[in-house]
């Protein structure tokens, strides 16, 4: 499974890597550390011209420059890109952030837990749901769910 993590905090990037390291499904984790870079990645521009479309995007909201919501809006303006499932992974618990994220097309909203064990649990849940349970559009899905 190809997962794009959009996260500006290196510690969180490593934490996510650590979390996925014990995954039952092999996860190909790509990381962009800003909103602008994330846009380049999904549109395969610049140094990301050979990038592959991810199966799932883990998107932080609080990013320097183009923030997570702006990235989400950009994705939704594109007929093809809007099919990519986006999971918000943030430390914000603000009601406004939650509501707005869903309004502009987020598929789910996760708050980063305060300890590593809970973080692992959450990543396992994400994997199980997005990689094993749901049916994704063919152009995205790597394996045929049937």
């Amino acid at each position, binding site marked *: 499974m190809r997962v794009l993590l959009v996260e500006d905090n290196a510690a969180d990037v490593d934490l996510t890597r650590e979390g996925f390291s014990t995954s039952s499904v092999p996860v190909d984790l790509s990381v962009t550390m800003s909103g602008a870079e994330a846009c380049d990645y999904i549109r395969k521009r610049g140094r990301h011209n050979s990038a592959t479309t991810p199966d799932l995007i883990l998107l932080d909201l609080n990013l320097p420059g183009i923030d997570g919501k702006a990235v989400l809006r950009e994705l939704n303006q594109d007929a093809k890109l809007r099919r990519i499932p986006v999971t918000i992974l943030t430390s914000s618990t603000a009601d406004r952030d939650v509501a707005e994220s869903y309004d502009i097309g987020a598929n789910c909203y996760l708050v980063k837990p*305060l300890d590593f*064990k809970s973080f692992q649990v959450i990543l396992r849940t994400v994997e199980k749901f997005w990689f094993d349970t749901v049916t994704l559009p063919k152009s995205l899905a790597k394996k045929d769910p049937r």
Partner: protein
Amino acid sequence: MGGGRMQFRGDQMPKAITLPELEATNRSLAEEMLARVQAERQLRESKDLLSRIIQSAMDAIITLDEQQCIVLFNVAAETMFCRRAAEVIGNSVESLIPARFRGQHAGHIRTFAETGVTNRAMGKLGAIWGVRGNGEEFPIEASISQVESGGKRLFTVILRDISERQRAEVLFRQALESAPSGILMTDEHGRILLANTETERLFGYARGELTGQPVEALVPDRFREHHPDHRAAFRQCPSKRAMGQGRDLYGRRKDGTEFPVEIGLNPVQTTAGSQVLIAIVDITARRRAEQEKERYTDELKRSNAELEQFAYVASHDLQEPQRMVASYTEILAERYRGKLDANADKYIGYAVDGAQRMQRLIRDLLAYARVNSQAKPLQPTDTSAVVVTVIGGMHSTIASSKAEIVCGKLPMVMADEVQLGQVFQNLINNAIKFHSELPPRVEVSAEAKGGEWQFSVKDNGIGMEMENAERIFEMFQRLHDRQQYEGTGIGLAIAKRIVERHGGRIWCESVAGRGSTFHFTLPMTTSGDA
């Protein structure tokens, strides 16, 4: 005297009188006698009546002859002057007049006699004073009249002792002058009849300068135009009340400056028409104090809000780095335990423990800040349902501790349901947590007391010394060490904050070793009380 009366002289004696003539004469004589007796009786009765009227009069009546000697002195005069009629009649009136006025008095009466006026009030030239038998002087109100009788002129003086009235007037004046408020009396046209010194001082007028002025002189120019309308409205419906309800009132000093006032109006009905007694208080100092208080309250509110915002932001922003510390010490502990030396394991253990504790503190601090920042409006709430939900949520705690929870009938209150649940959860949780060797038994009840609901959560736990009963509601205060009882010590601080936000109080009664009872109050709702 006329009629059939006959006079006889011996030399004129008629030679013979016939019987019918004699009988007629007798009849006429008898009739004349009867008339005379009747007239005399009427005269006697009328004199007697006059005398009784004079003697029973409330006012002193004294009659003098032209020589100023007393010829009549009634009972009221005896009482007033403390003198017997017998001892003053025939003597000069001077003995009834204080020595200092004696010389002038005779002159006044002579002048009156010369005017030829029948009667008039006395004292036009100054107050009249009398002197009693015991030497005491007293003020008098009097009138004088003159009559001619048998070629003699008599003067009758009717007097009234006005010392009581004068005392009352003095008392009134003293009260008026010592009143801390400005006091005015106006007539029905709004003209000032009377103003005390305080009024003059407040408005910067000299003594007596206000009397006769329209009351509008004391009203600022910008309100003056409408003031007569307000007066007219008051006249339509006169009642004792504060003036200008809902309006800020100002007085105008003689020099044109203004000051805030409070004014009380009292309608007074007098023979001279409807008057208004007005009390004026200068509220400059009070107004300033109110403004000061308002400013202070605003500042306090602002600083409280800022502090709350700070607590929220601080704890919220602390969470991020804290999450890193906690997560990575966890990974370190998991991945490197036993791979470094023994000290490293111990130190990692400390770091993990510290990080976890800090995490709880931050979480609790956030919860505390959220009592106000995430408060919902108070709505009619069924306390019983709230407690049932709380107990349901604590199912595993209750089961594992074998606790018995008894809940009485609880009322409807105005509350933020979630927060009220937090209060009960905290109290019930504490009641179970601090149990003794007995299985915990928790009683939840409510009673109406002093116009509010008093809720109680009673346990049979370890209790505490009453000297700690206040401290436990402060943030992060713990009575026991962390190893014995878990928790950061925020629960009761949050409960207190919630109860206070709802307009109630919370306190604890406890006996060490015998259990505790936590009480809190909530205002009664106006309707729907159970």
